[in-house]
């Protein structure tokens, strides 16, 4: 499954560790939430990057104490229609102030890219190769946004007060 970062297909540096597999001393790794919480103090003390896969039915606030030591949070879209992780993403970015990599995983298709970028995701495990290839183009599809989110774009209702001259820059992570 291609990983998109900064609008480009890139290699995934993270190794996924299953629940009972031994923790490698080096190298970026990604662990499930339960494993992470069980060994949190040990894991965040590692010299290499640690990421966590957080399910969409678990309170994201539980991650609060660890966020400054986490390099990656991977949220899950088990189905295209299951939108819980959009709320988790915005809470992570906008309330908990998480600044690390925020990755969308699961049923990730081109038709969600704009929503995901606006919710704060910056990397994407895209389900289909064809969708990953057009990421940059699809991410630029919309130039008007009606609501404010943590992506910093000014919504239409504020831009109207300022006139068209001050349109916000392209979406963060869109790669252009």
């Amino acid at each position: 499954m291609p990983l998109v970062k900064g609008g480009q297909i890139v290699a995934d540096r993270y190794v996924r560790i299953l629940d009972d597999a031994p923790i490698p001393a080096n190298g970026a790794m990604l662990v499930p939430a339960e494993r992470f919480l069980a060994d949190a103090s040990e894991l965040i003390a590692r010299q290499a990057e640690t990421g966590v896969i957080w399910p969409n039915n678990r309170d994201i606030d539980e991650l609060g104490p660890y966020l400054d030591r986490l390099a990656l949070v991977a949220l899950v879209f088990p189905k295209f229609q299951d939108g819980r992780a959009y709320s988790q993403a915005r809470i992570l970015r906008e309330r908990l102030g998480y600044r690390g990599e925020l990755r969308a995983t699961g049923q990730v298709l081109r038709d969600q890219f704009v929503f995901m970028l606006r919710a704060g995701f910056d990397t994407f495990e895209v389900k289909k190769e064809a969708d990953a290839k057009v990421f940059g183009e699809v991410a630029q599809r919309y130039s008007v946004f009606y609501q404010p989110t943590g992506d910093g774009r000014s919504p239409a209702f504020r831009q109207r007060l300022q006139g068209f001259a001050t349109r916000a820059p392209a979406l963060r992570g869109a790669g252009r």
Partner: protein
Amino acid sequence: MYIHDEFDSTLLKERVDEFRDQVRRRLSGELTEDEFKSLRLMNGVYLQLHAYMLRIAIPYGTLSSTQMRMLAHVARKYDRGYGHFTTRQNIQFNWIKLSDLPDATADLASVGVHGIQTSGNCIRNVTTDQWAGVAPGEVDDPRIWAELLRQYSTLHPEFSFLPRKFKIAVTASDHDRAAVKIHDIGLRLHRNGAGEMGFEVLVGGGLGRTPFIGKTIKPFVARRDILTYIEAILRVYNQYGRRDNIYKARIKILVHELGIDKFAREVEDEWLSIKDGALALDEAVIADIRSRFKYPAYEKLTDNPDELKQALADPTFKAWYRNSVSHHRVPGYGIVTLSLKPVGGPPGDATAEQMDAIADLADRYAFGEIRVGHEQNLCFPSVAKRDLPALWRGLDAIGVATPNVNLVSDIIACPGLDYCSLANARAIPVAQEITRRFADHDTANLIGRLHINISGCINACGHHHVGHIGILGVEKNGEEFYQVTIGGRADEGAVVGTLIGPAVPYAQVANVVEDIVEAYLDLRLRPDELFIDTVKRLGVEPFKERAYATG
């Protein structure tokens, strides 16, 4: 009218381009029907019994004559020459080809009309009072708030994949014509003790298989806070609403299972963390939206002009005037309802020719403005009373001056088994038969206000739960049967009707309705005791006896 600007039209163009690409991918097989489904739904495209159906939003029920002509054009060019106005200030085209959909949506977008979020598990078209801005005694024009909500909810990055659909309605009158108590969120604009304008927020109303009347979650939310408060409700719902069972996924079930107090505390906690964020509304933003609603240049006119006095000598005109014209907040003007309920016709349907003629009449007599109400009728919000006789002749000529507004033959009905893939039974022919039974206007007038609502299945698109008489089609051993409830209402005193007894077969429905109406005429205390009040006073028993005695 709301004046669309470059932001609105740019977004619509971008949406049409995206949808065109999605249809292309579906037609080429890149997308499976299952993958395409949630994409098409978010553009208002259903797959019905016979064809794709396109549902178009009419935000807060307001249409310009130009937009109405475009609806006529779409009906003529891409469909079979007619459209169906729904209970949610939408219009549906029932026979559109998939390959034509991008062009049809592009044509509509050219006049600011679209199908975005008229389906799918997202925030649907925000609805309000069809008399907004012209009804006497409103606290504010609720369309300003509906428009703010429309913009806020359009392509919302967090709330486009909710557990289930989400409907918001706004009213600003003491008399609620927007049915806010049967919506996921209902907003009632009012003034608090300090004279400040704000919103009573109701949550968890809805019909379907488990009907609930909305509960007040917060009696007063200031205007600056309304979007943040709604965002808090949606965020709690998006995370905790049930996704394991489609029939338990609406917010009403979450509110019911948690209890309104616990749900309100969750929302309050969430709200306190976002209330002073970027979504808080300042006065400049509200004023900007308000400034883009244009109102007619009303003249100073007499409230009882000679043209009207003379025309009232004609009993046919008089019957229509008394039935279909309502008080306007400006003297000399009236609000005119156009009945889309001709005797024997499908409720809410209009042909392309009617739509064009209505647009022309709106330009000539009604400042080019048309409204759509949840009762599936249209409305000219502002007509000079001196023009009423001429307007009436124009409306009568195209069959939309039936003087039955709010009467027994002004029936709300869903498309039912004639079109809908979910339906268990027909709804339209039941409505048509009932209108034939009560075709005599004198009888209908004698009966007075009586709302009959018909749904062809438990999903309740015909709002049967809140009909004064509600009719629900069910299927029993392969045959159509109908459950009958009485005493429901959708207004400020909203209540779910009570079942009067076992379901009856198709052929008996109109008879049962006639029995119930006859019982009411016998039982009412005075001619001005409405059906709904007689039911409230006596309960269902006396009606049940009559309905089943003659079975």
